[in-house]
C-alpha cells in the first residue's frame, strides 16, 4: 500500500525518507514540488497527485508536508488518515511535530515508522502499544540512557498487541488514580451582514485523561444524552450500550485520548454568545476609508466571554490602517493584509470598539471585495449546548478514583460576513 514516506519542510528540503518496500528515488518529489508551485498556497496543494509511475498522497501538518508514495489502488482516505496518525504520534512522543523535533529524534522516528507499517500496511498505530514498544524520550530517560547505555526500545514485549483490547496496555499502575474529562464545544457559525445567523452548529468533543490502575471498566452517563446528534466514538466504546441506553461504557486506553466527538446541529439550540457591529466604507476617488467595529455579549448564560480575538482579512489595496481601540491592542500586517484585534474580556458596561482610517494605495480604485471577519473567543465552565455529564461509574477495580469534568466553549469557525 504505502510505499515510501518523505517528510518535506516548508523550504522544500526532504529531511527524512523511509521506504517500506523497494527504495523510491527522491526525485519523485519533484512532481510534488511542481504541484506546490502551481498551487501558490500551501493549503491548496492537491492531496492526491498522479505521476507517471506513482501516486503521491500528501498532508500538510504543522508546517511540514508528509508525502507518501503509492503504487496501486488504495482508498486515499486510508493513507491520509494514516499520515495524520503518524503526525499525531510524533506530537504525542515529542510534544510537537516539527522539523527540529523529528531531526533530534530521528532514530525514534525511524523505529516508530518501522513499527507502524509493515510492507505498507498499518501494523501498530495505537499509542498505547507503540509506547510499550518504544518509550517516548524524556529528559530523565535520556540522561539515564547516556550513563547506563540502555535504550529507548522496550525490552518488554508488547502484550497489548495480542490482547483483545489493543488500545490499553497491561499492568498499568498509579498511586493516584484519576479520571478527567474535558467537554470542549466549538461553535461554528456564519453570521450575515444584518447580524442574523445563516448557519450555526456545535462541534463538541470529550477528551479524556485517564490515569487508572489495572483494567477499569467505566461508564459515563449524561443528563441529556438526546442532545447529541451525531457521535463518533473511540474504538473502546461499546456501541450497543450507547444504542440501547445512551451510556458511554468503555475500558479506557491509558493516558490522553479523545473519547467521543459529537455534533449538535439543530439551529435553535445553538446560542450565539457575541454580536458584532461593523462597517467599512470608502469614499469615491479618495485613498481613504472609514472602518468601525464593535463587539458585545449576547446570550452568554451569565459567564464571562474571554480571549476574544477578531481577525479581519482586508482587501489587497489596503495599504495601512490607522485605528484607535477602547480595549486591547491591534496589529495590522501590511504584507498579508490581516488585521488582528486582541480584545480580551468583554465587560457589558463598556463595549470594546475599534475604529479609524483605512489608507489605500494611491490611485487604486475602491475595492469591491469585502473583508471577512473571523472571531475567536472562549467561555469557561460552560458547554453551550447544555450537555451535562451525569455520573461516572467504575467497575472491575476496587479503588476509588478521583473524577473531574471540565467544560469549555470556544468559537470554532466563527465567521461574520461584511
Amino acid at each position, binding site marked *: 500500500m504505502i510505499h515510501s514516506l518523505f517528510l518535506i519542510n516548508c523550504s*522544500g528540503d526532504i529531511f527524512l525518507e523511509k521506504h517500506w518496500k523497494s527504495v523510491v528515488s527522491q526525485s519523485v518529489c519533484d512532481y510534488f514540488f511542481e504541484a506546490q508551485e502551481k498551487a501558490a498556497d500551501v493549503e491548496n496543494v492537491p492531496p492526491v497527485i498522479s505521476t507517471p509511475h506513482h501516486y503521491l498522497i500528501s498532508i500538510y501538518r504543522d508546517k511540514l508536508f508528509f508525502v507518501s508514495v503509492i503504487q496501486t489502488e488504495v482508498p486515499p482516505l486510508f493513507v491520509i488518515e494514516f499520515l495524520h496518525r503518524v503526525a499525531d504520534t510524533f506530537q504525542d512522543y515529542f510534544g510537537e511535530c516539527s522539523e527540529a523535533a523529528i531531526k533530534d529524534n*530521528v532514530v525514534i522516528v*525511524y523505529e516508530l515508522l518501522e513499527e507502524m507499517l509493515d510492507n505498507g*500496511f498499518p501494523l501498530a498505530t495505537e499509542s498505547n502499544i507503540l509506547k510499550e514498544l518504544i518509550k517516548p524520550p524524556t529528559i530523565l530517560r535520556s540522561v539515564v540512557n547516556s550513563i547506563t547505555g540502555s535504550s529507548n526500545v522496550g525490552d518488554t514485549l508488547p502484550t497489548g498487541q495480542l490482547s*483483545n483490547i489493543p488500545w490499553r496496555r497491561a499492568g498499568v499502575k498509579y498511586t493516584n488514580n484519576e479520571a478527567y474529562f474535558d467537554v470542549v464545544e466549538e461553535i461554528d457559525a456564519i453570521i450575515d451582514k444584518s447580524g442574523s445567523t445563516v448557519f450555526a452548529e456545535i462541534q463538541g468533543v470529550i477528551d479524556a485523561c485517564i490515569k487508572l490502575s489495572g483494567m477499569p471498566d467505566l461508564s459515563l452517563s449524561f443528563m441529556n444524552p438526546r442532545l447529541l446528534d451525531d457521535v463518533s466514538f473511540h474504538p473502546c466504546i461499546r456501541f450497543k450500550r450507547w444504542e440501547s441506553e445512551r451510556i458511554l461504557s468503555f475500558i479506557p486506553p491509558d493516558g490522553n485520548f479523545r473519547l467521543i466527538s459529537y455534533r449538535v446541529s439543530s439551529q435553535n439550540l445553538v446560542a450565539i454568545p457575541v454580536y458584532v457591529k461593523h462597517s467599512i466604507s470608502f469614499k469615491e476617488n479618495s485613498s481613504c476609508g472609514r472602518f468601525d467595529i464593535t463587539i458585545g455579549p449576547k446570550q452568554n448564560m451569565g459567564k464571562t466571554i474571554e480571549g476574544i480575538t477578531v481577525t479581519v482579512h482586508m482587501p489587497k489595496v489596503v495599504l495601512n490602517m490607522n485605528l484607535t481601540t477602547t480595549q486591547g491592542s491591534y496589529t495590522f500586517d501590511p504584507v498579508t493584509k490581516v488585521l488582528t484585534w486582541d480584545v480580551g474580556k468583554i465587560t457589558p458596561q463598556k463595549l470594546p470598539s475599534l475604529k479609524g482610517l483605512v489608507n489605500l494605495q494611491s490611485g487604486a480604485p475602491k475595492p469591491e471585495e469585502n473583508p*471577512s471577519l473571523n472571531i475567536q473567543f472562549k467561555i469557561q465552565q460552560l458547554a453551550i449546548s447544555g450537555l451535562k455529564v451525569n455520573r461516572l461509574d467504575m467497575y472491575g477495580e476496587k479503588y476509588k478514583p478521583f473524577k473531574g469534568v471540565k467544560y469549555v466553549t470556544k468559537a470554532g469557525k466563527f465567521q461574520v460576513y461584511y
Partner: protein
Amino acid sequence: MSAAPAYSEDKGGSAGPGEPEYGHDPASGGIFSSDYKRHDDLKEMLDTNKDSLKLEAMKRIVAMIARGKNASDLFPAVVKNVACKNIEVKKLVYVYLVRYAEEQQDLALLSISTFQRGLKDPNQLIRASALRVLSSIRVPIIVPIMMLAIKEAASDMSPYVRKTAAHAIPKLYSLDSDQKDQLIEVIEKLLADKTTLVAGSVVMAFEEVCPERIDLIHKNYRKLCNLLIDVEEWGQVVIISMLTRYARTQFLSPTQNESLLEENAEKAFYGSEEDEAKGAGSEETAAAALPARKPYIMDPDHRLLLRNTKPLLQSRSAAVVMAVAQLYFHLAPKAEVGVIAKALVRLLRSHSEVQYVVLQNVATMSIKRRGMFEPYLKSFYIRSTDPTQIKILKLEVLTNLANETNIPTVLREFQTYIRSMDKDFVAATIQAIGRCATNIGRVRDTCLNGLVQLLSNRDELVVAESVVVIKKLLQMQPAQHGEIIKHLAKLTDNIQVPMARASILWLIGEYCEHVPRIAPDVLRKMAKSFTAEEDIVKLQVINLAAKLYLTNSKQTKLLTQYVLSLAKYDQNYDIRDRARFTRQLIVPSEQGGALSRHAKKLFLAPKPAPVLESSFKDRDHFQLGSLSHLLNAKATGYQELPDWPEEAPDPSVRNVEVPEWTKCSNREKRKEKEKPFYSDSEGESGPTESADSDPESESESDSKSSSESGSGESSSESDNEDQDEDEEKGRGSESEQSEEDGKRKTKKKVPEGKGEASSSDEDSDSSSSTSESEMTSESEEEQLEPASWRRKTPPSSKRAPATKEISLLDLEDFTPPSVQPVSPPAIVSTSLAADLEGLTLTDSTLVPSLLSPVSRVGRQELLHRVAGEGLVVDYTFSRQPFSGDPHMVSVHIHFSNSSDTPIKGLHVGTPKLPAGISIQEFPEIESLAPGESATAVMGINFCDSTQAANFQLCTQTRQFYVSIQPPVGELMAPVFMSENEFKKEQGKLMGMNEITEKLMLPDTCRSDHVVVQKVTATANLGRVPCGTSDEYRFAGRTLTSGSLVLLTLDARQAGAAQLTVNSEKMVIGTMLVKDVIQALTQ
C-alpha cells in the same frame, strides 16, 4: 513559496549527486577521505563488544539512511550484528538490513540463519519479528525459505504470528509471482481464521494476491461480517471494500424493484438506473402490476452486511466512515442510503485533506442521490478561510443540490461569494450560477440579470468569466436578449481576457441579425487590432467576418477580405488554414460553387445550447472512496466494481456446516483430514468397519461419527444452534442425514413399539433435527417434545438438557438409550466452558480438540455366531458420555441375527459383578428378525479398574455368559485445561504419582498429527495446548473417581521421546504408559 522549489532544485542539482558519493566513491577527492574515515570509525564501533558503542554507531547509520544518504558500504560490518543480544541494536540492524539487503544479496544471506532460528523461538513475538524481517528482505534466492516459513507461521498457534504470516504473503508475491498458487492455499487457510487480529491482514493479502478468487470468500463471508466491528480500523477499511465487491457479484440489486416499476410504467427502458422520483400515478399502476411479479427479497446475507457495517459510520476514522458510506451507496436500497449523509457531513470538520476527498465523493453522490444531502445544504456553505480547492468542491456540491425550492437561498449565498477576495473562487462561483441557471429554468432570468450586473465589475477576471457564462446562457433563448448582446459588444473595447473577447465575438456573429448595426462596427474594430489579438480571438474574428459576409455582405465585404488577408499571413498555421478554408467557402469563385452555395447553412446552422454539467457526472462507475474515483482514471490494481448479477448466484455457498465458533476447534482436527464434517465422519469410520453396506453397519458408522465429534463439540454446537436459528437452512447436510436416518427408522419402528418415555425422547430428537423431512409426520404419534433441543433450557430443568444431549449425540442411534432421564454428565459442562473460552477473540487455536478419535479398540466380539446359535454380538466403546450416569463407560452393543428364526426378548440377565462394578442395562429388544441387526447402548461403571464386567445375555430361550473387559484408555474422559493449569496440576502429582518411560518413536510416528492421533486413539484424553512444538500434553479424568490423568510426551532429537503420566491412580497410570508406548512404537 515559489522560491522554495527552486531552492530545492538548486540543491538537488548541486548537492544531490555529490553528497552520497563521498561515502563510497574513492574518486571524489579531498573531502571524501575524512568521510571515509568516519565510516571507518563506525565500522570499528560496530566491531567492538560494547553494546553502547554498537548502538551509537547504528543510530548514526540509521540517521544517515533517514536523510537518504548511502550507507551501503557498511553492510558487512552491520550484518555481523544481526544476532546481537541488545534488542535496540538488533532492531536497528533489522532496519538497515531491510533497506540494503536488496543491493547486497550475497551478504544478506549471512543473516538468514539467524531468522530461521528465530522462527522456532518459543516466544511468539520473536517468531513474528523473525518472519517479518525475513519476508522483508527482498532477495529472490530465499523465496523457498520464505514460502516454508509462511506456511508454517500460517498454522502457528499465536494469532499474532499468523497475522505476520498474512503480511508476509504480499511481500513474497511481489518478489516472485510464480508462488501464487501456493500462496492462495495459505490465504485460504488464513481466511478461515477466527481472530480479529488476522482478519484484516489476510483480506489485505487476498486483495493483493488473488482479488479475483471471490469464491474463497463464500465460506468466510458471514464470519467476516460478524467479526468486522472488532477488527482494527485499517483492517475494517480493506474488508469493507472487498465485501462491497463481493456483494455486487453475489446478491441481486436492491433497486431491482424500482427498475421493474419503471419498466411496468413506461414499457420501455430495460434496466434503467434512473433514481429520480417518478410520478405518483405511474407508481400506482406499477404497484398494481407488481404483485404479479416475484417481489424482491433481500438475501439475508446482504442484510447482514448492511446491518453489521452501519455502526461503523460512527467510527472515529474517516477512512472507515468513507468505506461504509461507499458500501451503502453501492449496495443499499435507495431508502436506506440516507443514513450515510450525516456521517459524511461530520467528516467535513476534519483535516482539509480529508475534506477534499470526502467532498469529491459527496459531489459524485449528490448527482445521483440529491435528496440525501439536501437537509445538510448549509453544511456545505463556504467560509473565507477554506482553501480554494475545498471552496470549489463545496461549490460543486451546492450546485448539485440546488433545486426549485432552495435556489433562492443558494443564490443569495453565491452572491456573497462573488465578493470574495479569492478570484479563482469567484470565477468558479460565476460558473456555478450559470449551471444553476441552466438546470432550473425558473431562475434563468434572475441569474442572467445578476451576471450582466457583474459585467460592470471592476475586476476583469470576474467580467470575463461572466461573459463566458452569459454566452452559454444566451444560446438558450437568444431572441429576447438583444440588449445584452449590445451591452457585451460595448465591452470589447475594455475587456482584454482572450476567452471573454472570443465569446463576445462568437455571440455577435451568431446573433448578428439581432444587432445588425453594431456587428459590422465591432468587426471594423477587431480588424484594426487583429494582429495584436490572441489566437482564439483571431479565429473568432474570422468566424465573425465570415458570418457577417454571408448576412450583410454589402457592408462587410471589404472588411472580411481585409481580415482574411491578414490571417493569410499569420504566424499560426491554424489561423492561416482557417482563413484559406473560409475564403474558399464564402467567396464565390468560378469553379467552386457547390459548397459555397451551402455556406450559409454551414455557418449559420442553429446550434444546440451547450449543456452545463458537473464534472462529477458518471464518476460513480468507479467505486467511491477509491483512488481511481478521485483521479477519475483507472489506477493500477483497481478492481472494477461489477454490475449486479441478473440472477442471484446460489446463496448456499455461504453456508457453513459447522457453526461459527466451534469450527475452530474442529478445524484443528479437520486440517488433518480435509473433508467436510459429516461426510468425513462416515468415511473415516470405514477402516474399522467391514465393507458391507447393510443398514446396521451404516448406522454404526453414524453413531461413531457422533461419538467422534465428542461431547464438548456437540454440546457447543447445540448451543450455537439455539443462537442462530435462522441459519437453519444452512444445516442442510445435517438434516439430510437425519432424514436418511429417519427412513431407516421407519423400518425399525415395528420392533420398537414400547418404552414410551425413552422412545419419545429419541423421536423428538430426530423429528426436530429432521424438521423438514417427511419423517416428522410419521413419528408424530410418539412425539412428546417437538423441537425441544432448540429451546434454551435452563440447567435446572432435568429433562430437557438430557433430550438435547441425546438429540445431538445419538442422532443416528435408534435403540432407546436409557430409561431414566438425567442431567447431562459433568464433562459436558466443562468442555462447554472450554468452548466458551474459545470465544474470546484472541486465541482460538488454543482451544484444544477435545474430540477424541474413535477408540483404537475397534469392534470386539462379545458372542460368536457359533456359540450364540446364530446371534452375533459385538461391542465398541463409543467414547461418548453415557447419558444415564456420568461415571459409566458407554458401550455400544451390536446384535445381529444370522439364524433363520427371529430372536425374541433380548435382555441382560442377572449380572455377576465384582465389587463396585455396576451396569446400566439396555432396554429389552423385543424381537430381532432373521438377517436384521440392532444396536443398544449400555453403561458400565468399571470403578476405575480394568476388571471385566461379566453378565448374562438372555433371549427368550437361551442365556449366554459374556464379559466385557475395558482397555485402560477407555476408563477416562477428556478434560479441558490450559497449559498453566496443566503445569499446576502436574506439579501436584509428582513423585509416586508420576510414571516416566523412555521410548523411541518409529519414523512413521514423528509427525504431530500421527502422535496425537495415536495417543488419543489409545486413551480417551483431551489435548492440552502447548507452547513448544515437540511436546504433547493430554489430560483426562477417570470416570468413576474423577482423578486427573495427565500425559506428557516429550519428543526429542531423532525419535527419542519421553512419556510421563501423572495420576493418583498409579495402576491406571502404569497401564496407560504401557498401552501408549505400545501404540506409539508399533
